[in-house]
C-alpha cells in the first residue's frame, strides 16, 4: 500500500468535487431494505488534470460519474461545482457515453449541434462550431450521414464532437472505448491523448470512468481505484509519466502492476469480513461470477507457470480484461485455491491438488471447498437435503436472493451458485422446469 495516499485536496479550487457521496437503491422485495452502491465517496477534479475512476463492474463508478454530472441525485453527501452545491444537471459538464448515445434520426451535424441548440446559439454560429468539432475528430465529409451509416469508432467520434462543441469545463467519459473493438479503441485512446497533449483541448479537465487499467494509466494524471460492494475509494495512484506514454516503458508496466495490487489487495476486504461475521450476512456474501471450469483452467495455467504469476502478465497472456479476470481470481481465493499478494497470484496446496487431480478427484476437492467456503451453495444443498423429495423450485432461492441483491444481481448470484453446485455434484438444475434437485444416489461420489 506504499503509494496509496488519502485523497488529497487539490491546490487549485476543484471544478467538481464529490463530498462523502452515498447512493442507495431500495430493494424491490424487501420493504425498507436498501442496496448500497456508493458509500461515502469523496473525490475532486482540479483544472487541467485528467482523473480516471477505475473499478470493476459493481463498483458504482458510472453512478458516481452521473451523480457528479448532476444526472442522478445522491442519497447522501453533496457535489460541489466550482465551490457551489450542485442542483440539477451540471452545466460545466459534457459527457461521452459507452453506448455513444447518438440520436439515430438526426444527421451527424444535427447530433453535434444538439447542445448548441439547447443553449440558443444562432444557426450560423452553430453550424460553424459544429463543423469545426466534426473536423477535429476527423469526420469531415460525414456531416450529413446518419449514425447507422457509420462504424462504431466513427459513431464514438461523433459523441466526442458533440461533447467538444459545447466547450465544457469537464469532459466526462463513461467507458468511452469499451464498446469498440481492440484496434479501434486503441486508436481512439491515442487520439484523445494527442488532442490533450496538443494543448488546445476543448475542455479544461477530463474525468474518465473505465475498468481498463492500461487505459487509465495511458490517459490519466491520477487514478482513483474504486472497490465494490459497496463502491468506495480504495486508493489513489499518481501517474507520473511523461506524455506521450508508451506501454513498453518499464515505469508504465510497474504502474499497471501496482494498480493491480491495489485492486486485488485483500486487506480491505478482510476488515469487512471481520466486521460482518454474522451468519445472515455470511450466507449472502456475494459469489464472484466465475465458472467452475474457468477457475480450474486458471489454476492449471498458474501451476504450469511455476505456481506464482504476476497478474498483469497473466491478464495479458490470456487477453482478458480486469473485469473478466478478477472474478475468476476472486473465486479461486474464496475457495482457498489461491492467494493474491502484491499483484501476484500463487496457488495454494489445495489449489495445486485441485488443478492436478483427475476429474473425479477434482470435483471432490471442489465440493469440499465449496461446502466450507461458499455458504450460499452450501445452504442450497442443505435446503434440498431437508426436502423429502430432494427438489425445490428455483424461484424459492431467487426470492431469498432478491432480498439481498437487485434483481439482475440476484439472478447472476443464482446462476453462479448453480454452476458451482453442478460442478461439485451437490445438486442438479433442470432449466426447463426451473427446479433444483439432489443428484440421483448412484451419481453421488463416495
Amino acid at each position: 500500500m506504499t503509494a496509496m495516499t488519502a485523497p488529497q485536496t487539490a491546490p487549485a479550487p476543484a471544478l467538481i468535487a464529490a463530498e462523502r457521496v452515498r447512493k442507495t437503491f431500495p430493494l424491490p422485495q424487501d420493504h425498507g431494505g436498501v442496496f448500497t452502491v456508493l458509500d461515502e465517496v469523496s473525490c475532486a477534479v482540479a483544472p487541467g488534470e485528467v482523473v480516471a475512476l477505475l473499478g470493476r463492474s459493481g463498483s458504482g463508478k458510472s453512478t458516481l460519474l452521473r451523480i457528479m454530472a448532476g444526472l442522478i441525485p445522491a442519497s447522501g453527501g453533496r457535489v460541489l461545482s466550482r465551490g457551489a452545491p450542485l442542483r440539477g444537471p451540471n452545466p460545466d459538464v459534457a459527457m461521452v457515453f459507452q453506448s455513444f448515445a447518438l440520436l439515430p434520426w438526426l444527421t451527424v451535424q444535427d447530433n453535434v449541434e444538439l447542445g448548441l441548440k439547447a443553449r440558443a446559439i444562432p444557426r450560423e454560429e452553430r453550424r460553424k462550431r459544429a463543423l469545426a468539432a466534426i473536423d477535429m475528430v476527423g469526420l469531415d465529409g460525414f456531416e450529413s450521414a446518419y449514425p447507422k451509416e457509420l462504424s462504431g469508432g466513427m459513431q464514438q467520434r461523433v459523441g466526442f464532437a458533440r461533447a467538444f462543441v459545447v466547450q465544457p469545463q469537464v469532459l466526462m467519459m463513461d467507458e468511452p472505448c469499451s464498446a469498440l473493438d481492440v484496434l479501434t479503441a486503441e486508436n481512439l485512446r491515442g487520439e484523445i491523448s494527442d488532442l490533450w497533449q496538443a494543448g488546445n483541448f476543448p475542455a479544461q479537465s477530463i474525468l474518465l470512468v473505465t475498468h481498463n487499467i492500461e487505459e487509465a494509466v495511458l490517459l490519466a494524471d491520477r487514478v482513483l481505484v474504486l472497490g465494490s460492494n459497496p463502491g468506495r475509494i480504495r486508493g489513489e495512484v499518481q501517474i507520473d509519466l511523461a506524455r506521450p506514454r508508451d506501454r513498453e516503458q518499464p515505469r508504465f508496466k510497474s504502474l499497471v502492476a501496482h494498480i493491480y495490487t491495489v485492486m486485488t489487495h485483500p486487506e480491505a476486504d478482510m476488515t469487512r469480513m471481520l466486521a460482518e461475521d454474522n451468519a445472515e450476512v455470511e450466507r449472502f456474501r456475494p459469489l464472484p461470477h466465475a465458472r467452475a471450469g474457468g477457475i480450474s483452467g486458471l489454476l492449471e495455467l498458474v501451476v504450469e507457470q511455476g505456481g506464482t504469476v504476476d497478474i498483469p502478465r497473466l491478464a495479458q497472456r490470456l487477453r482478458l480484461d480486469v473485469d473478466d479476470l478478477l472474478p475468476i481470481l476472486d473465486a479461486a481465493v474464496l475457495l482457498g485455491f489461491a492467494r493474491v499478494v502484491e499483484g501476484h497470484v500463487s496457488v495454494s496446496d489445495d489449489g495445486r491438488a485441485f488443478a492436478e487431480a483427475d476429474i473425479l478427484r477434482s470435483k471432490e476437492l471442489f465440493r469440499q471447498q465449496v461446502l466450507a467456503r461458499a455458504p450460499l451453495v452450501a445452504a442450497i444443498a442443505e435446503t434440498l437435503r431437508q426436502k423429502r423429495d430432494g427438489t425445490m423450485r428455483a424461484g424459492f432461492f431467487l426470492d431469498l436472493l432478491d432480498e439481498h441483491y437487485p434483481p439482475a444481481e440476484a439472478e447472476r448470484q443464482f446462476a453462479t451458485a448453480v454452476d458451482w453446485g453442478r460442478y461439485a455434484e451437490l445438486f442438479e438444475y433442470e432449466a426447463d422446469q426451473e427446479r433444483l434437485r439432489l443428484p440421483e444416489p448412484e451419481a453421488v461420489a463416495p
Partner: protein
Amino acid sequence: MLLAALAIAAVLAAAGSGIGIGEVGHVALLGLATFARVVVLLAVSTLIWTPVGVAIGFNPRLARLAQPVALLLASFPANFLFPLAALLFIHAGISLNWGGILLMALGAQWYILFNTIAGAMSVPTDLRDMATSMRLRGWRLWRDLIIPGIFPSWVTGGITAAGGAWNASIVAEVVSWGGATLTATGLGAYIADATGRGDWPQIVLGVAMMSAYVVGLNRLVWRRLYRLAESRYRLS
C-alpha cells in the same frame, strides 16, 4: 388487391339484391363520417395520453403504481357505460355525432396509452441522460428525443386503436336509454340498423365497406408509417 376484391364483393352484394349504385355511394359517405370520428379520436387520445404515457414510462416508480390502475380501467367493458352516456348526452343535449367519438374512445384510447408507456420505457437511459446533460428541455426535448423515440410504438398503438374504434362504431353510433334512442350519422349506425332489421344485403354492404376502409387505410397510411418508423426511428 384486397381492397378491389372487397369493393367487387360489395358491388356484387348490392347488384344481387337490388341495391343500387347510389346506395353504395351513400354507404361510402357514411364510412367517411365514421372515418372522421376515428381521426378525431386518435388525435385527441394522442394529445391527452401521450404526455401521460411518457411521464409513466420515464418514471419506474410511477409506472409501478399506474400500470395496474390503467390495466383495470382498460379491462372494464366500455359498452356497459354506453346507456349511461346516452342518458348524459340526452340531458346535456349533445348530439351523438360528437358524443359517439367519446364512446368509441372509451375502449380505443388505452391502446395509445399502453403503447406510449412501452415506447417511453424503450428509450435507452443513456439517450435520456445525454438529453438531460445537454439540457434539452420542453418542446425541444419532445421534438428531438421523445416524439421520434416513441413513434414506432405510437404507430402500433394507432393501428390497434383505429381498428378498435372502427369496430366500436357499430355499438357507439346507436345508443339507447329507456325508450330514447340516439343515432349518429355513420357506417357503424348503418350496420347496427341493418342488423336490427335483419337486412342481409345491407349488412353485407356495410361490413364490406367497413373492411374496405380499414384494410385500405392500413395499406395507404399505417403500413407507410410503420415502414418509416422501422427505417428511421428504430432505437437499436
